[in-house]
């Protein structure tokens, strides 16, 4: 089986350039609200020579690339397009595994018995992406996911690199150890201290040394350095169970107000619980993520006595963790996640008290309202109190519901000015209708 890894080039920025011709050929930086602080979500290839990178503070990006066009990102747009791209891939093969919002593995069966034939299909996919969406993609082709993934990064943008194991060794063995998929900065540093500086060094490193230094992953990494990988491709229609679910938010402003932080935690807990119920999960371990204004990040977790998918149980734990671990410094980011997940049917209690039964029926009714009318239709009261100050947790973009005068106007040729109709969208995209 041959595998492709399709990696959309500078996806978010390229989407904005494709949709808005005046941005083409210019440095484009996609971010949160450009009028506020935040970080760079994506930078176009034109912005990259200035040193702008995803994750960089906006303030720093502005200093490096003052002439860039700053565009507020639209996650719903990128997800929508990502789903359209997955549809496109499935017309070439049913075996498509999304790897991230802008990357997907495509498994090719008997229709691509050779690397050359797989590369032809990859080229056809590239052409169709360009034709239909006006976007560039770099594709790696290989006999397994590891080779495909690493090959996709060899030539960018709009690159196509097909490697067999021998080609993999030729290309990657001379490269720095950190180019290995799965080797991050810390692991690379440890390897360098042992004299393992390149991928080739790792491939030739003695197994006992790797085992003693890195445990079970040592020998696995050496196999990877030989271009070997037997990780199965899991098509998304046969998806794996999630390991955890969470939401986090970078606050519009650093915040040291306890009540505001607790209001945000309630919103995050509600979102997590809602998503868990929607996907049929319950979980036991609640984790709080707390990042202060100096970028110091704290992760703390607590295990519940039993499984839940209720915000009423997740939130108090998250709040307790906040109160126990917050030193009063202004907070930049808050996150709540739940792990140790199980399918809700498998972990369900056999007997429910009447009051729990009523709560559950109420929750199910509220879920049905949200399913029908959208997330913003019902939100916990406690999340509204501080929304104007902290704003940022999206429940879905509000649409103007103002009744519009619909006078017949067949031509739209002689318009009457309608001053004052514009309603600049609030920064809080969670305003309920």
């Amino acid at each position, binding site marked *: 089986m041959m595998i492709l890894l399709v990696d959309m080039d500078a996806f978010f920025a390229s989407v904005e350039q494709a*949709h808005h011709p005046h941005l083409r050929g210019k440095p484009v930086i996609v971010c949160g609200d*450009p009028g506020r602080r935040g970080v760079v979500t994506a930078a176009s290839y034109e912005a990259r020579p200035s040193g702008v990178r995803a994750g960089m503070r906006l303030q720093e990006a502005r200093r490096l690339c003052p002439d860039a*066009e700053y565009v*507020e990102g639209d996650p*719903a747009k990128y997800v*929508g397009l990502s789903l359209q791209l997955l549809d496109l891939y499935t017309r070439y093969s049913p075996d498509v595994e999304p790897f991230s919002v802008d990357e997907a593995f495509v498994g090719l069966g008997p229709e691509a018995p050779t690397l050359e034939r797989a590369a032809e299909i990859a080229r056809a996919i590239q052409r169709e992406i360009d034709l239909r969406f006006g976007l560039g993609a770099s594709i790696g082709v290989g006999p397994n996911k590891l080779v495909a993934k690493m090959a996709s990064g060899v030539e960018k943008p709009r690159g196509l690199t097909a490697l067999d194991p021998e080609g993999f060794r030729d290309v990657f063995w001379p490269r720095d150890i950190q180019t290995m998929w799965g080797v991050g900065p810390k692991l690379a540093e440890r390897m360098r201290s042992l004299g393992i500086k390149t991928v080739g060094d790792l491939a030739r490193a003695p197994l006992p040394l790797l085992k003693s230094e890195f445990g079970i992953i040592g020998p696995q990494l050496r196999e990877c350095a030989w271009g070997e990988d037997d990780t199965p491709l899991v098509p998304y229609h046969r998806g794996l169970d999630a390991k955890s679910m969470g939401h986090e938010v970078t606050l519009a402003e650093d915040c040291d107000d306890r009540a505001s932080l607790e209001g945000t935690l309630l919103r995050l807990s509600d979102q997590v619980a809602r998503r868990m119920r929607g996907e049929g999960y319950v979980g036991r371990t609640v984790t709080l993520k707390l990042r202060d204004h100096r970028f110091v990040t704290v992760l703390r977790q607590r295990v519940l006595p039993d499984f839940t998918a209720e915000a009423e149980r997740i939130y108090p734990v998250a709040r307790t963790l906040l109160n126990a671990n917050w030193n009063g410094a202004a907070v930049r980011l808050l996150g709540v996640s739940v792990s140790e997940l199980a399918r809700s049917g498998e972990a369900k209690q056999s007997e429910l008290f009447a009051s729990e039964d009523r709560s559950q029926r109420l929750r199910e009714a509220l879920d049905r309202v949200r399913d*029908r009318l959208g997330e913003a239709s019902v939100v916990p009261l406690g999340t509204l109190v501080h929304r104007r100050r902290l704003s940022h947790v999206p429940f879905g973009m509000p649409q103007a519901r103002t009744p519009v005068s619909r006078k017949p106007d067949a031509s739209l040729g002689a*318009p009457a000015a309608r001053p004052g109709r514009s309603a600049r969208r609030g920064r809080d995209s969670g305003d309920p209708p």
Partner: protein
Amino acid sequence: MVPGNNVFESLSDPIDVIGAFLEGRIQPLRFRWQGRVVRVRKVTGQWSRREGQTVLRYFAVESAAGESYELCYDPRSASWILSRAWTGRSRGQG
């Protein structure tokens, strides 16, 4: 004032649209905003977003004058919203 250009206005303006419904697809052709008619030269992108049971249809369009807009069609009320605009001028300039 920070350097860098904030190129878009984020809006939520109800607008009147003339469009074509062709082979199951919607194609906005022109719309009226701030008292003027904008002719759509090209639909440069389309995507959708689910809000409850409703699928909102979004369109990125380029006007004949080279401006960029994003429109949203809400099938619940058969209404259109202008969600983003880049006209190369501030709103006060009409």
